[in-house]
């Protein structure tokens, strides 16, 4: 448990988080491993956790009718996978498909939501960190949509 707490505290997503909060989070955490080529979650499934990626690479994909899934982005070491656990209806919007074997810390969303309701300071800390991730990914998506390397721009 102590080791898990240390891993959470060392992960960039929780950098600088007060130690009593790290301790609280550890109660909702577990070590997980996914082999390369497997799905961590799929679109439409219930979103009950998120992942602090320690090693490996995950592709975020969207299902496209009559064609293979489209890879939207990849996430790797030091990143966070999944925020659908945070907001209703708590369902995954995309597939998460491992490109390489992934080692991660899974945080139980239901457990964490309960703790955040009980301690709004913790909830605000978590929300601020996810808002930052969302802002970065929204900006990256807008940049990607510009398709700046296309001929004729």
């Amino acid at each position, binding site marked *: 448990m102590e080791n898990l707490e240390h891993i959470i505290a060392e992960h960039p997503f929780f950098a600088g988080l007060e130690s009593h909060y790290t301790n609280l989070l550890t109660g909702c955490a577990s070590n997980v491993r996914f082999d390369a080529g497997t799905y961590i979650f799929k679109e439409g499934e219930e979103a009950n956790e998120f992942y602090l990626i320690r090693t490996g690479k995950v592709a975020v994909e969207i299902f496209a009718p009559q064609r293979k899934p489209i890879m939207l*982005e990849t996430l*790797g*070491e*030091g990143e966070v996978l999944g925020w659908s656990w945070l907001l209703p209806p708590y369902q995954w919007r995309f597939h998460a498909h491992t490109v390489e074997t992934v080692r991660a810390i899974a945080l139980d969303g239901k457990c964490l939501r309960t703790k955040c309701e009980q301690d709004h300071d913790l909830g605000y800390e978590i929300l601020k960190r996810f808002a930052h991730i969302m802002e970065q990914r929204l900006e*990256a998506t807008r940049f990607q949509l510009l398709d*700046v*390397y296309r001929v004729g721009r």
Partner: protein
Amino acid sequence: MTMATAATTDPMLPQPYSVRQVVKETADTFTLTLEPSNGAGGNRFQPGQFSMLWVFGVGELPISISGDPAERDRLVYTVRSVGQATHALVSREVGEAVGVRGPFGTGWPVEKTEGRDVLVVAGGIGLAPLRPVIYEVLHNREKYGRLVVLYGARSPRDLLYRKELAAWARQRETQVLVTVDYGGLSWRGHVGVVTTLFKYARLQPARSLAFACGPEIMMRFVARDLETHGFAQENIYLSMERNMKCGVGFCGHCQYGPHFICKDGPIFAYDRMRPLLEKYEL
């Protein structure tokens, strides 16, 4: 007469070169190696400089030099075929003539990076003007700190210099990260814009200089994100591009605010460019 001497004496007079080699990099991008038709060597250039290349009977193009500064018997250019003149240029056969003026413009301030880390951020064909920097650092490894190359392209089939990227990644004190905006399912690398690589690069902004080249929008995103990561504006350099004609600041075609890109640039520190980058329609 060396090319540098020719440029000094009459910068408007093209020197005769012939095509030694043409390498297809991608479906529309080719690397041409030119050698002086008179057999003279001594082609000195600074990484980041460009030449004006004449395709006789078709037109003249500003093209950045993408070769190794240490190889003085040749000039190397990577060209994307997107119009009549570039198509004519990349269609030259081995032995055919090309006129060369230059080299022109300012280079990357590689000398300022001695003892410091070098961060290269390239997008698309923007890797070509940065390749001479990479050669320079790798040839003189003891003079520089870490070399970090971050390269983004539209898709895996648009990546330039694939074998060299892999070879650079094996060099000591060198980190090479590649990403594509659109990856097919067979692509095992990163997917996402080039700025998403910053978090994987072990950056030390206080002891680094950053050189960025690519579409202007991409460079704006890059420069802004580098600032967020702690880079001072004066330690970020961009390669700017406008419609260059004479190459020596006479004609004014490439005027950008108070600057002529061909003569005052194309390499500028971000602190000088930032106010202009934010102006509409400039």
